[in-house]
């Protein structure tokens, strides 16, 4: 994980923290996040509570690995403001479609501008942090570690941002239900995600059947229908990697900084053209 977030909102989210912290603590926070020091991580009613493993440090008299409790709490946006903001969102197809595609629209702030609030944390007042560690500074590196992980999670689940700012998923659904476009988004969000279905075999399993009586030799050697007399002409070149392109770049499982779509284009191209010995 070179970067914690590749989305604009995740990066903006991180920027709010980076504005108020020194680079030393930030960098240690990043190693905490990367190094699996954050032991547990829970979000409830907009409050994040985490258990972070500290380091042994005889100089400070810490001889066994300590476990600190860290919380981050974001300032809630009032219910009335949420109502107004969601009403605005639900009046623009562009905002709704992007949310449906699991993206925070880059002009989302328009929905909040009139209300004089920001969806993304903007200012140190927008969140409160606490940690049980002995560090005098707040936010400390443990808080930063948790914060970075939170940013990474926002990439995959942008609606978490709404939750952090005081709009629970149920409340979001309720607000969305008020307008036709909102209903469309609401319906998309409630689509149940399918549980992993186990694959019984890697390739489709070719099963056998007991041979029924074969009427004639022709039934054995020929198909039920005659093959077409001609082979369809080779198609014209089409746009490469189109299946993948529609899903947008940087799917969750791709954590390289280079574009997934471009990499796939190259990959498809290689498979198409470099296998001259095979087809």
């Amino acid at each position: 994980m070179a970067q914690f977030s590749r989305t604009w909102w995740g990066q903006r989210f991180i920027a709010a923290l980076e504005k108020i912290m020194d680079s030393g603590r930030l960098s240690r926070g990043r190693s905490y996040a990367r190094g699996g020091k954050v032991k547990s991580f829970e979000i409830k009613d907009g409050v994040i509570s985490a258990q972070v493993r500290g380091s042994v440090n005889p100089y400070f008299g810490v001889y066994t690995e300590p476990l600190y409790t860290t919380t981050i709490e974001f300032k809630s946006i009032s219910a009335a403001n949420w109502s107004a903001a969601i009403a605005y969102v639900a009046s623009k197809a562009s905002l709704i479609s992007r949310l449906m595609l699991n993206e925070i629209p880059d002009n989302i702030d328009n929905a909040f501008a009139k209300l004089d609030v920001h969806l993304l944390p903007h200012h140190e007042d927008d969140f409160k942090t606490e940690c049980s560690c002995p560090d005098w500074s707040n936010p400390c590196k443990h808080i930063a570690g948790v914060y970075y992980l939170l940013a990474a999670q926002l990439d995959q689940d942008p609606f978490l941002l709404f939750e952090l700012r005081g709009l629970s998923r149920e409340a979001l659904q309720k607000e969305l239900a008020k307008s036709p476009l909102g209903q469309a988004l609401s319906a998309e969000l409630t689509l149940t995600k399918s549980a992993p279905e186990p694959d019984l075999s890697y390739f489709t399993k070719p099963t056998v059947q007991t041979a029924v009586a074969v009427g004639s030799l022709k039934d054995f050697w020929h198909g039920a229908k005659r093959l077409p007399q001609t082979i369809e002409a080779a198609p014209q070149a089409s746009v490469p990697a189109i299946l993948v392109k529609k899903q947008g770049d940087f799917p969750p499982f791709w954590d390289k900084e280079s574009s997934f779509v471009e990499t796939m284009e190259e990959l498809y191209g290689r498979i198409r053209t470099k296998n001259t010995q095979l087809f």
Partner: protein
Amino acid sequence: MKILHGTWIPQVEDGFIQRGAFYLWVETNEVTKKSKTTQHIHPCQLFKNDLETFLMQELGIKSELRLHPIAERISPQYFLLPSHGDRPLPSLELARYIEQDLPEAFELKYWQVDCYAAKTPIHMIGSDYELVTNVIKLLNELHFIAMNNLAEVQLGADLLFWYHYTQTFKQVILKDQYIPALKYREVVHPKQTVSAKSKKSQPKNEPNFEVYPGWEITSDQYETDLKRYVDYMPLACVAGFAEPHETPEFYDRELLLRHFSECLLTEIATHTPSTAGFEQKIDDTLLHHCLSANDSSLGKNSRLELYQQWRTWRDRISHIQTAIPFYLCFQLQEPGQPEAPWELQFLAAPKQDPSLRVPLTEYWSSKATRQKELQKQLGERFEQNLLLNLGYAARIYPKLWQGLETDQPVSIAMDLAEAFEFLQDSAWVLESAGYKVIIPAWWTPKGHQRAKVRLRAKGKSLSRAQDKSKSYFSYDNLVQYQYDLSIGGEQVSEKEWLELVKAKSPLVKFRGQWMHLDQDKMQQMLEFWKKHQQENPEISLIDFMRLTAEGNEDLEVEFDRGQTLAEMLDKLHDKSRLEAISDPVHLQGTLREYQKRGLSWLSYLEQLGLNGCLADDMGLGKTVQVIARLVQEQEQAKQAAMPLKPTLLIAPTSVVGNWRKEIEKFAPHLCSIVHHGTERAKDTTEFQAMAQQNHVVITSFTLIRKDLKLIESVDWHRLVLDEAQNIKNPKAEQTKAILKLSAPHRLALTGTPVENRLLDLWSIFNFLNPGYLGKEAHFRKSFEVPIQKNNDPVRSATLKKLVEPFILRRVKTDQSIIKDLPDKVEQKLYCNLTKEQASLYEAVVKDITGELDEAEGIQRKGLILATLLKLKQICNHPRQFLQDESDFSPERSHKLSRLSEMVAEVMAEGESLLIFTQFTELGDALEKYLRQTCHYNTYYLHGGTNRNKREQMITEFQDPETEPSVFILSLKAGGVGITLTKANHVFHFDRWWNPAVENQATDRAFRIGQKKNVFVHKFVAIGTLEERIDEMIEDKKKLAGAIVGSDESWLSNLDNDSFKQLITLNKSAILE
């Protein structure tokens, strides 16, 4: 003969990943001695060593590396095959080469066969070579080899199926219709024994799953194709196994196809040559795992999360791919005023009824009830799907976001540059992504108006064509031309052109029409035009036609309206524009409408000095059209008082007599002579004199080579090649000899669809218009290989354009032909006797002449009937008379040779036919010959056929899924009661004395349910009793008093002299 078989065989299952391989084997009737029929080992196969030699020497499979000899890829596999007793039965393809009747009942048994696994070594980065399945490429090559008879092999129906399937499946790879995938496997662990010691080191929850990287096909087309191919798939393709099973079993067809497709895709993807650079790009990602060729599952770290992330991504791909019930459409609207904005409108169309396009403006502005109605058509959750779909589209074409800044999106506005970009790129991208894009007609290839340098043919020297006397013999017409600047077919001045070159946008409105111009190219064209403007070049008509056909993007050939040259080329490309001309005065007979158009085409082409190929379907009367042309030109020549030189007609020996006969019938005033046989002219002077005295000299392909010196010595007016496919081998002496002859006019006739056999086509054109299609090697490279091996539509279209003006081919299914054609077309085929037949015939006649005078009463009658029988047998084939099991070869009977040529044509057309004969022994011989020597699918019904077998044959023959077949029937057994309407050709190999009986037989095909015209072909041996009896039937008056009965006994009422006259052989009818 060797038949190639093969199929996909899954490995013996041994875990989660079950692979497979494509195995090829060779069935043969040339069984080597050493192969004893050991139990379970297929006796008629090429065994390992022979197979290896055969693969390398005949099929050109290279043993690429010493490390990977072919022998290593050969291993025994097991096939469940129809068997009888202790032997497997031959495949249907091989059965046609074996003189052995197949039993009706059979059982299925497993046979061990040495198989070659279709794999080739591929070099892998950082490791050695790996063997990878190359079945797509291999089958394409084998098909090409078999098609072009490059080796003595034939593809079995099983392999042919796989050839078709692999060609179709290739599209999945060419169109990127697959994605990297993960497979989630549940693993059942044995219960862990928890010991106190190892408590710490043992993870508490051993995960009960594994995740494997791989590939997945995601394509609607693939799913549709699978369903379609299941119906084409023979059981033979699901009967191959890695080890024999206990009971007879087959694989499930669809599952085997899926297994094959998935394995193949994975093998190809994981063996794609890579580079260090690319490896770095995908290092430590899902793609790296998916591309690596080992079978291991992913490491334990975060694999469940990875799987879930991938799974969500995949579900979304398949959702938009298949689940949304409507198409999102985008329609680009051009502005009324050039400066006004363009508009891209959004529409939705139900997938079930894509022509019902609902503009979103209409949808949003509709009342709620109407919206509900529309939603019914556009599917559940329409608005939700619409927004999702718009969002996906906007991802691909971000400008769309602008149109979504509302709660009711309907369209976006664009300026000129954006519209241009959209037309140029985005429209295509959206279309490929499954959206429907509707663009203005002027952008489509059809409506596209281009700026071009126009080659304007002035055709000035063609004006000579108006002068009848000269034009008739002028064939080196020259075309004059000049270059113009033109846009969309209209001439443009240099000034206008320059203005357009300077226009800011490639989209311009010019003379009231929007169009797309490429200014850089226009600049180049302008320079080209300036350079060539001063020239006034001339080329020959045929070179000009080649120039027009081969075309060039920037150079357009056009003509001024109403100009003769334009009109002329139009007529040649679209023959329906030729006017039918009236029958020549001296033609004895009436031409059908299409035959008149044919005549018009023949004379038109010759007037222009071009040589063509008349390729009408068999039965449409090519002969009579040629004769009409001969009559017509004689009339024209007479008018112009210009005597014509003779025409040389070259035909297969079996039709030489027929030509003579037809000329006598339709144009008795034309002098024709057959140059053939021992009596033929022997020296140049004699030959020249003979040619001078005749309008037409008919000879055979064989004699051209023998008598080239004589034939060359005459200045011919025209060469006509009947059955022109006979010159398809450019290296044959006969072809070379024909190419040496010179004549101003050349005409080729053929009934086989030449356009599908490219080398035949080339050979015919090499005769007609040498050089027009280039040299043979060049033609192979630029047309044959791209079209037949790579299925290249562009080359194919170019070739069609090139040859189209020179080929007139009407098929009997053309609507315009059907209306000119009676439902039943009867035709007689006159054949000569071979020398052997003639001497047998004469001997019989000689014997009887003496005996007849002495015989009386019953004895006389018996003698007459026996003689008739003998003579008819001789007319059919010497073997039938001799009954000595000697060779039933076409060389011994022109009748048989003509029959097999015609059957070949019918088969090439994909049609079925009936052959009637009175003689069981002949039926037997014909069936064997057509099945074993010509390899057609045959049925044979005779007096001894039992009822069940008879019904089964009829059903099978009639089944539309049965390949085109030959049905041989004895006149007595098959003459009544049954329906064989799949056949639309009926042959009467020998004649019955009563036309009513023949007609009844013909009616097996000509019955209710027959949708095609029926062609009836009756064979008549020239100069024999057959011909005379035919005349009697045609014109009963000639035999006063004789009553034509239902059998031959009435003939015994003839007096001795009449009878002798009836059977005497006319010696001029003998042909070698």
